[in-house]
């Protein structure tokens, strides 16, 4: 039997969705191992925290975890990368796992390299694909990630064990159809007090976080709408989305030009969105942007360059000046009445 651990994370009082996504993905890997090598894999969710909500543990089981471990200490109320990683390691040293998956959240990416460095093993960063392959008769974790600004995909294996990867949130879907209730255990953990790092203040970023997760429709603005002055078409598009009560996004180039803050940015270095409908206005389709929206269900692109890259990824292609379409939509939705 092999063991797979998932480092799960909390935000506020609840587990983040990426936790369940990874658990469900691990179950897929488990099924593959069973069918291809008749190999059993045990999936364990591991949380470093002061407490966990009972319902979240249930959800983790529904998503497919065999075990749920809480590495517990009251001191874990505030995140600290040194404390969290050494806590995980103290659990790991007593409970070896062959594979460890981490969510590629900012905090997950602070923990994972510390853990793998101590374990003297490899770590594949920010993966968007994960599978088992059989190589030389062994079951190997094959992690695929974008590199070179997402121009190139690389599939990476680890020579050392444990095999580890951080996985970008929203890459996989959580599936709460498991019926077997797993085992919950607590692992009390004492840690040295570490005064080298003090959190003086923590504030929510200026505006509310844009929630691309719940948006069914997103209209997105690209450099084609930029005019270097008042950028009236970007503003009009924004007003249309407010009127229709749908999501608004833009590309990195516009964020870099200071049009709106980076919380609206979709792409490799921004947010990932998978709405039912994504409409790209004047977006050429750099790989970096495509990486953030290509999994949308329906993609419509409007661009006056008929060879624009974005069309290759689109279900519907409209070769015209996006500004004309925005004018039309602006009229028809009555956005000008605002």
């Amino acid at each position, binding site marked *: 039997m092999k063991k797979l651990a998932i480092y799960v994370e909390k935000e506020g009082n609840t587990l983040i969705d990426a936790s369940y996504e990874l658990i469900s993905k691990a179950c897929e890997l488990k099924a593959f191992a069973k069918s291809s090598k008749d190999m059993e894999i045990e999936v364990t969710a591991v949380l470093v925290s002061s407490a966990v909500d009972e319902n979240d543990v249930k959800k983790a089981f529904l998503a497919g975890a065999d075990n749920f471990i809480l590495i517990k200490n009251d001191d874990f109320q505030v995140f600290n990368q*040194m404390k969290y990683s050494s806590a995980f390691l103290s659990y790991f040293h007593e409970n070896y796992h062959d594979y460890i998956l981490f969510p590629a959240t*900012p*905090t997950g*990416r*602070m923990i*994972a*390299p*510390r853990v*793998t*460095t*101590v374990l*003297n*093993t*490899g*770590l*594949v*960063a*920010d993966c968007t694909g994960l599978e088992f*392959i059989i190589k030389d008769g062994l079951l190997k974790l094959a992690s695929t990630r*974008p590199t*070179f*600004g*997402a*121009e*190139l*995909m*690389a*599939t990476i*294996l*680890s*020579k050392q064990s444990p095999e580890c990867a951080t996985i970008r949130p929203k890459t996989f879907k959580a599936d709460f159809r498991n019926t077997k209730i797993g085992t919950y255990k607590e692992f009390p953990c004492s840690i040295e007090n570490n005064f*080298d*790092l*003090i959190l*003086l*203040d923590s504030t929510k*970023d200026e505006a509310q976080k844009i929630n691309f997760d719940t948006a*069914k429709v997103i209209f997105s603005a690209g450099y084609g709408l930029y005019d270097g002055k008042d950028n009236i078409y970007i503003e009009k598009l924004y007003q249309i989305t407010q009127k229709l009560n*749908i999501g608004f996004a833009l590309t990195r180039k516009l964020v870099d030009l200071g049009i709106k803050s980076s919380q609206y940015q979709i792409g490799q270095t921004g947010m990932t969105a998978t709405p*039912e*409908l994504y*409409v790209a206005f004047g977006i050429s389709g750099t790989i970096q942007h*495509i990486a953030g929206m290509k999994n949308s269900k*329906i*993609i*419509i692109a*409007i661009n006056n360059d008929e060879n624009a890259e974005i*069309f290759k990824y*689109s*279900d*519907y*292609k*409209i070769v*015209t000046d996006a500004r*004309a*379409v925005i004018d*039309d*939509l602006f009229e*028809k*939705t009555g956005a000008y009445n605002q």
Partner: protein
Amino acid sequence: MDIIVCVKQVPDVDDIKWTKENNLDRSMMLSKINKYDDWALNWALNIKSKFKDVKITVLSMGPKPACDILNYALAKGCDRAILLCDKMFAASDTLATSKILARAIEKYIPNYNIILTGQMAQDGDTAQVPVSLSQLLNIVDITNAIEIVNADKNIAIVKQKLEDKVNIYEARTPCLIAIKEEYPNVFYPKIEGYIKAQNKGIEEYCFEDLELQREDVGIIGSPTIVYKAFRPEINKKTTEIDKDCSDFILELVQRVEIE
């Protein structure tokens, strides 16, 4: 006060060239300093401009041409430059790279107060080396840093941005800060700077100098291996529709919203 800035020479990712076989054509690509590392340099030079007795050492691992970015850093006002260069180091992954950098720091720049790095490299995008390096040196790290509010020999106060949150940390030195945001005032290298840089020179150390184990560096010392590399595939059926498409879009919006 001693500051180390780690820099990497990267191919220009905005100008990627491909061979006929769909491989990256590195020979055709211009190399430059990783953008985030350049920002780290500017933050370091800012600290130097404010306080007395600040010494900046710039450190890079790479082939000989990486001297270009070290000279650039010296010309901008850094005091000392170190290149770690050996064909044994080639193809090091993030763990092996971190081990090489950590050893060089322990051996040649042991009395540092702060290490500055870019948040990530533009070619690899892993953001793992700063964290791994901190772990090896057993120091505190603050990644995703958008502002160094203050820094002296003993304490660094740093603003960190994570998705929807801004944290302010006080870290006791020695510590590592990984920079994600540009410093508002850019320091440009001047011609006099380049002339001075020639006099300063670049210290160069190889595998033997660092007294590392063979199994710690390069392709042997890298636990990860690239199994395959490929360009993302697209297979979408695209339907072209009429220019007058606003009704079509609005209908789709409505249908999706009702579902």
